C-alpha cells in the first residue's frame, strides 16, 4: 500500500517559490489501477515524481508498506511520457529492458527469461535485436513498458505515457496496460490528461484540482472487467463517469484561468 499524508511541494524558496501541491492525502491499495487526471498545468507530474522518489516533498510523508520513501524504491518502476529520451538509443531493445536488472543480482538465465517474458507480453518478442529508434513511437513505448515489467515492480507508475501517440495506437496500448496488469499482478498509477482514458483504465479516478494541487474528487469506477474499447465506452455508466470527470476538470480549468495561474513547465 502506498500512502501519501499531508504532502506539499514548493518549488523555489519559501517566500517567492510556487506551491505546486498542497496538503495531499490519499492511499493506493495493492493491485489497484488508479488514474490521476486533472487540467493541464495542475501538477499531476509533480505528484507522480513525488511518488517515484524523484522529488522530495516539502512537507508530509510518503510511505510504501509503512516504509518512508526517501529515494526511488526498488518496488517502483516508471514509464515516462518521452519514450524516445527515456530509452537508450545506443542499446538494443533487449539490452534496454535488461539494463535496470544489472543491480538485481540475477543469474544470466533468470535475467534473459525476465526480458523475453516482458517483451513477449508487450508483443515485441521479434524485435529484441532492433534499436529503439528503428521502431515506431507506439512500439518504443511498449519497450519502455516491457522495461518496467521486467524490473518486476509492485507499482508501475505511468506519466502520460500515450500522450504523443495516435488514437488507434493509444487504444491498443490502453488494453495492453490492462492485460499486463493481470499478468504481472502490479499496482498501476497512471497520470493522464485524457478523460476517456482516465475512466476506461481505472478502478479509481483521482481528479486533481487547480494549483496548488489537491484531490478534487476520488471516484470509484465500477465498470465490468474485462474492459472493451467499444462495449465499455458504449455503456451509460461510462458516459456518466466521463461526464462527471469532465465537469470537475472544466470547473478547475475555469478557476485556474480566473486566478491567472500559468501552466507548469514540462
Amino acid at each position, binding site marked *: 500500500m502506498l500512502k501519501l499524508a499531508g504532502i506539499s511541494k514548493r518549488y523555489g524558496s519559501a517566500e517567492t517559490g510556487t506551491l505546486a501541491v498542497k496538503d495531499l492525502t490519499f492511499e493506493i491499495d495493492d493491485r489497484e489501477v488508479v488514474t490521476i487526471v486533472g487540467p493541464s498545468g495542475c501538477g499531476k507530474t509533480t505528484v507522480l515524481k513525488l511518488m517515484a522518489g524523484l522529488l522530495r516533498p516539502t512537507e508530509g510523508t510518503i510511505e510504501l508498506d509503512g516504509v518512508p520513501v526517501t529515494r*526511488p524504491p526498488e518496488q*517502483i518502476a516508471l514509464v515516462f511520457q518521452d519514450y524516445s529520451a527515456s530509452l*537508450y538509443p545506443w*542499446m538494443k531493445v533487449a539490452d534496454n529492458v535488461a539494463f*535496470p536488472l544489472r543491480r538485481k543480482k540475477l543469474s544470466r538465465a533468470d535475467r534473459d527469461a525476465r526480458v523475453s517474458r516482458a517483451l513477449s507480453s508487450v508483443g515485441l518478442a521479434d524485435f529484441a535485436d532492433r534499436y529503439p*529508434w528503428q521502431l515506431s513511437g507506439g512500439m518504443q513505448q511498449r519497450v519502455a513498458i516491457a522495461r518496467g515489467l521486467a524490473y518486476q515492480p509492485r507499482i508501475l507508475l505511468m506519466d502520460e505515457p500515450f500522450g504523443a501517440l495516435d488514437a488507434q495506437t493509444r487504444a491498443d496500448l490502453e488494453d495492453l496496460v490492462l492485460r499486463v496488469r493481470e499478468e504481472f499482478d502490479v499496482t498501476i498509477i497512471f497520470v493522464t490528461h485524457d478523460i476517456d482514458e482516465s475512466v476506461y483504465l481505472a478502478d479509481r479516478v483521482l481528479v486533481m484540482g487547480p494549483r496548488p494541487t489537491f484531490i478534487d474528487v476520488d471516484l470509484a469506477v465500477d465498470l465490468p472487467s474485462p474492459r472493451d474499447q467499444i462495449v465499455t465506452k458504449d455503456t451509460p455508466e461510462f458516459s456518466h463517469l466521463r461526464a462527471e470527470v469532465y465537469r470537475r476538470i472544466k470547473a478547475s480549468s475555469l478557476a485556474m484561468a480566473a486566478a491567472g495561474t500559468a501552466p507548469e513547465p514540462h
Partner: protein
Amino acid sequence: MTRRRSALYIAAEVLTPLLIVIGVLIFTNGSAGFYFPPLQDVLVAFQRNWLFDRFGTDILPSLGRLFAGYLIAVVLGVALGVLLGHVRWLRRQMSPIIEFLRAIPPPALLPFTIIAIGVDSSAKIALIAFICIWPVLLNTMDGIAGIEPTIKDTGIVYRIRGRDSLLFVELRAASPQIFAGMRTALPLALILMVISEMVASTNGIGYFVIQSQRTFAIADMWSGIVLLGVLGYLLNLIFTLIERRALSWYLGARATTR
C-alpha cells in the same frame, strides 16, 4: 540516375587528384627551380627514406610521441570533462582558466617544455597532451552537462548508479560530443609533433624535414612533407572508421528523426 551520379562522383574523386599530380609533375619538370625539385626525385627520395630505411629511426619515434600525447590528452580530457560536467560550480570557476590556457598558441609553450622537461620524448609528449586536452575536455564537459533530464531520471528511478551509470549511460550519451573533441584534437597532435621535433630534437619526421632543409637536400625535405600529408590523411581515415563504428547508433537515430 543516382547510381550514375555516384559513379561520376567517384570517378571525379580519383581523377581530380590524378590530374593534380600530373600537373605537379609537368610543372616541376618544366621549371629548373631549386625549391621545387622534379616530382620523380621527391618520390625516389620518399622510397629511399621511408620504405623502410628510416621507418624505425624516425617514423616510429614520431608516431610514438603522437599517440602517447594524444592518448594522455583523451584520457585526462574525458576524466576531467566528466568531473566538470557534473559539478556546475566547479565548471563556473574553471571555465575562464580553461579558456585562457586554451588560447595560448601551442608553439609558444615549446621553450617552456624544453627548459622544464628537457629535450627528450617526454617533453614532446607533454606538449602534445597539453594542447590536445582542451577540445576533448570542453566537449566532454558539454556532453555530460547536456544529458537529457529524462535520461537522468530514468537512471535514478531504475537505481542505475556508479560505474554502470558512468560507463553505460553518461559516457555513451556524451560520446558524440567526446568524438567531436577527439576529432578536433587529432590534427593538433600531428602539428605539435612536427613542431616539437623541429626544435631541440635528434630524430623524428619533423627533425628529418628541418635537417634536410638545413643541408639543402630539398628532395628529402619534400619527401618528409609528403609523408606528413599521407600520415595526416591516414590518421583521419582511421579515426573516421572508428567513429562510425562507435557512433553507429547516433548516426542511425539521427537519420531516422530527420
